[in-house]
């Protein structure tokens, strides 16, 4: 079958899609977007996390046909013209990447957390909230401490940028947590 959807802001159509195929397979093998990783194929690891109409989901558990006509954003769609997204930059700066396989899923899920908290004018998420939202993303290198550092760093930078934009800049605040 043919499946058309919007991926990272672009209308795309995948041809010859098998009816039992996952959105993840379509993204990786038919649309040339290998950022989302294929590991467990059962929703246990979070490595294939993408936005589906603004909600983060495991792309391996969405039937490709279910994504037809809907909006998908993958890790490839997070960076803008100004460069990497704040979460991506923080993962690099904090050394939160080891083998890198779980990283794209973690970045999408952390992006969602910050979108719902700091970006929405709320407070910086505490460690409990960070752990809760990342509970479905497994890192088999077990690099969780650096991953938590990266999310804290991205949140602090975003909060500082928001404060600066509001005319209440406190120099140095952006580097809290490094």
């Amino acid at each position, binding site marked *: 079958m043919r499946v058309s959807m919007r991926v990272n802001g672009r209308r795309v159509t995948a041809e010859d899609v098998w*009816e039992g195929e996952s959105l993840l397979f379509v993204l990786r093998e038919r649309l040339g977007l290998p950022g989302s990783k294929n590991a467990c194929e059962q*929703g246990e690891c*979070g490595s294939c996390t993408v936005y589906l109409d603004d909600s*983060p989901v*495991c792309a391996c558990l969405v*039937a490709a046909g279910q994504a037809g006509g809907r909006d998908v954003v993958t890790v490839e769609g997070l960076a803008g013209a100004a460069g990497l997204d704040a979460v991506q930059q923080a993962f690099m700066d904090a050394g939160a990447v080891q083998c890198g396989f779980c990283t794209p899923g973690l970045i999408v899920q952390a992006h969602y957390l910050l979108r719902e908290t700091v970006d929405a004018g709320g407070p910086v998420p505490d460690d409990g909230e960070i752990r809760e939202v990342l509970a*479905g*993303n497994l890192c088999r290198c077990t690099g969780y401490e650096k991953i938590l550092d990266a999310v804290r760093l991205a949140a602090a930078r975003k909060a500082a940028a928001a404060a600066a934009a509001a005319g209440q800049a406190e120099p140095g605040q952006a580097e809290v947590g490094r």
Partner: protein
Amino acid sequence: MDFLRPATLQQALEAKAERPAAVPIAGGTDVMVEINFDTRRPDALLDLNQVAELAEIGSDGGLLRVGACVSYARIIGELGRELPGLALASRTVGSPQIRNRGTVGGNLGAASPAGDAHPVLLACDALVEAASVRGTRLIPAAGFYQGPKRSVLAPDELITAFRIGPAMGPQQFAKIGTRNAMVIAVCSFALSLWPQGRPAGTGGTIGTGIGSAGPVPLRATDAEEFLAAELASAGLWESGVALPSTVTHTFGELVAGAARPIDDVRGTAAYRRHALSVLARRTLGWTWDSYRKGARQCA
């Protein structure tokens, strides 16, 4: 394989009548695992995501009507006040990504004894709404499950919603697993208190549900009747004093006795029975404390 994508409930029911072997798919969190692992090759998938009626939350009489395709994330976000027990159970489902997709309708359709919603549906006397081109019927949750992954649903029927009384007293849900996230229950227990009786007027003041400790989700009827009688005869609802330890202990034993567990990869039957007695005592302690606090505030 065919991929059927009805836009309305009527189209979905017609598709299911025409193709009874078509497998309904909503969040995909069970169905896609089976397809990915090649353990199931249905000749058609019936995608319910386009059917707006199935994602609605409304009310009918004194009961809430929750569409079969309402996600666990929405239950947590939108129904925490009315359905605290179900919201607690929903919080233990998978991960945030899974809760964004998974649905109670899917839990019912899969009818796994380990499904997290089932104990709460039992404890709250929920009704499963099943529809086909022949009509709509309401099935009490207690009569819905037939065996592991089997229910009374007819081949041409779809689960369209569940109807459930809004909480009129404290509710709790507790689950045993190896970690807090991404866990299939070793066993689970739901408890609901209805100090003034239930919205529909049927059922007692105590509701229970046992998960993952029998071929189907179970009610602990003896435990319900014992506790209801103890609370009534000793005037405990009125006095709001702490429960005697003999009462909580016996309640736990009766819950454990109602389970019909087996030994499997997640735990032994003996462990499940023991854990259920502990969960029953704990949830009773939590709900009773909450009731006493509420009663004091009203006084």
